[in-house]
């Protein structure tokens, strides 16, 4: 059996001025501080902050046909070939098209994958990623950690989305600063907006819970009240575990606005036939394997509902399940005239 080892081309230190020159954003137009802000963002943001942590992958001895199915079912155009976290190559839609053309669909993926790969490291600043997207034609790069293990994948869209969110926040801060200088009244409410998304993979129990732990840490950094942060993290954890053990995979999303935090868990099915039954305390379809991991007592949905200020669940069998939990960050005013005597 051939022991594939891909040629991995690795980045060198990059010059951020060059990237700024190439970014379509006219930094000067935003005022004096803005180019500093953008530079700072490009350095502060690391590849690991914006990459997708899935990572769907396929072993070397899988066939092109299996690869085709995974690409199609997940609506993706490239799939890492990896085993035990080690990256061997990437198989793309192009390779599949070639395979169909030449009748290679029953060949193994290692015969036709690209094995000369350009990769990024999780700890690199986002400026590296931008540079790479500029210099290469690839739409996405695999991300390795310092132990050369495959930990994620990053696309141009991931980078742009994250930067746009952060930029809008920073620009608003700048605007406010400018407004203060000319002594205008401050806007009535600061709609600070933060959004982050985590991919949750079916049956990936080493990864399960990681998003919830990160959510807890983020909330601490953002100085969210400790007991509220704990309730948010509890819901996030239960919902993340549910996606992992009951669904084909999905995403966990956290949005922080001025006065609320929303956790949304959405997956790609199989859906819940009887929502009322599933939300009851103690009802579960979990198996022994799930129970051996400390879950599966049928308390996840009811726990999430209990800790949240707002709870909603939607599901369509064969399609999706979506659970939304929202949490007030500000104490609610007591309703007028509602005091008991």
């Amino acid at each position, binding site marked *: 059996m051939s022991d594939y080892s891909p040629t991995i081309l690795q980045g060198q230190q990059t010059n951020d001025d060059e990237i700024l020159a190439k970014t379509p954003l006219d930094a000067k137009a935003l005022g004096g501080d803005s180019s500093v802000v953008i530079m700072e963002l490009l350095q502060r943001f690391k590849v690991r902050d914006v990459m997708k942590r899935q990572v769907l992958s396929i072993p070397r001895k899988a066939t092109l046909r299996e690869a085709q199915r995974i690409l199609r079912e997940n609506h993706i155009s490239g799939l890492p070939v990896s085993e035990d976290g080690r990256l061997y190559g990437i198989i793309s839609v192009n390779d599949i098209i070639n395979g169909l053309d030449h009748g290679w669909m029953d060949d193994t993926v290692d015969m036709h994958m690209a094995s000369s790969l350009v990769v990024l490291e999780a700890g690199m600043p986002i400026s590296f990623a931008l540079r790479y997207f500029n210099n290469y034609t690839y739409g996405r790069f695999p991300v390795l950690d310092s132990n050369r293990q495959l930990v994620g994948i990053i696309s141009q869209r991931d980078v742009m989305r994250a930067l746009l969110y952060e930029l809008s926040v920073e620009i608003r801060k700048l605007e406010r600063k400018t407004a203060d200088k000319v002594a205008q009244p401050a806007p009535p409410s600061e709609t600070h907006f933060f959004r982050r998304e985590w991919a949750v993979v079916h049956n990936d129990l080493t990864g399960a819970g990681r998003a919830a732990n990160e959510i807890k840490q983020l909330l601490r950094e953002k100085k969210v009240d400790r007991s509220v942060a704990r309730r948010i993290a509890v819901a996030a*954890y239960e919902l993340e575990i549910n996606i992992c053990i009951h669904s084909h995979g999905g995403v966990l999303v956290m949005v922080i606005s001025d006065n609320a935090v929303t956790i949304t868990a959405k997956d790609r099915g199989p859906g819940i036939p009887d929502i009322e039954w599933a939300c009851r305390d103690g009802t579960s379809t979990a198996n022994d394997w799930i129970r051996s991991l*400390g879950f599966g007592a049928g308390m996840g949905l009811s726990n999430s509902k209990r800790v949240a200020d707002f709870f909603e669940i939607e599901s369509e069998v064969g399609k999706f399940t979506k659970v939304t939990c929202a949490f007030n960050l500000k104490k609610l005013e007591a309703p007028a005239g509602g005091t008991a005597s």
Partner: protein
Amino acid sequence: MTIADVVKVLNGKLMAGDGTSPRVVGAVVANDLMSDVLLTDADDVLLLTSLASDQAIRTAHIVGAVGVVIHNAKPLSETMIKVANDLGIPLVSSPLSKYDACVKMHDAFLAEARG
């Protein structure tokens, strides 16, 4: 009682995290069901469990636990130790059974209260 005291009381061994943490144990939660642990409202929890998995550590982090004790000297995986170090959760292995560990903790709390 700090995590260093817990190690002594339970005849245990610190496997990960900071053994000199000044945090004081406020309550002991002895449970193998993580959904139950997530349900508790107690602060400064010490999680005593036989669930030797990453999930025990991750759950402890969610509830802001002071530390995790795995009883019956259940073998700990490398990833579990790594997760504990990454999340800064002191992880202790104790040879005692769940029951004995609870009794020891209870006695230690009483002794502490008496001064």
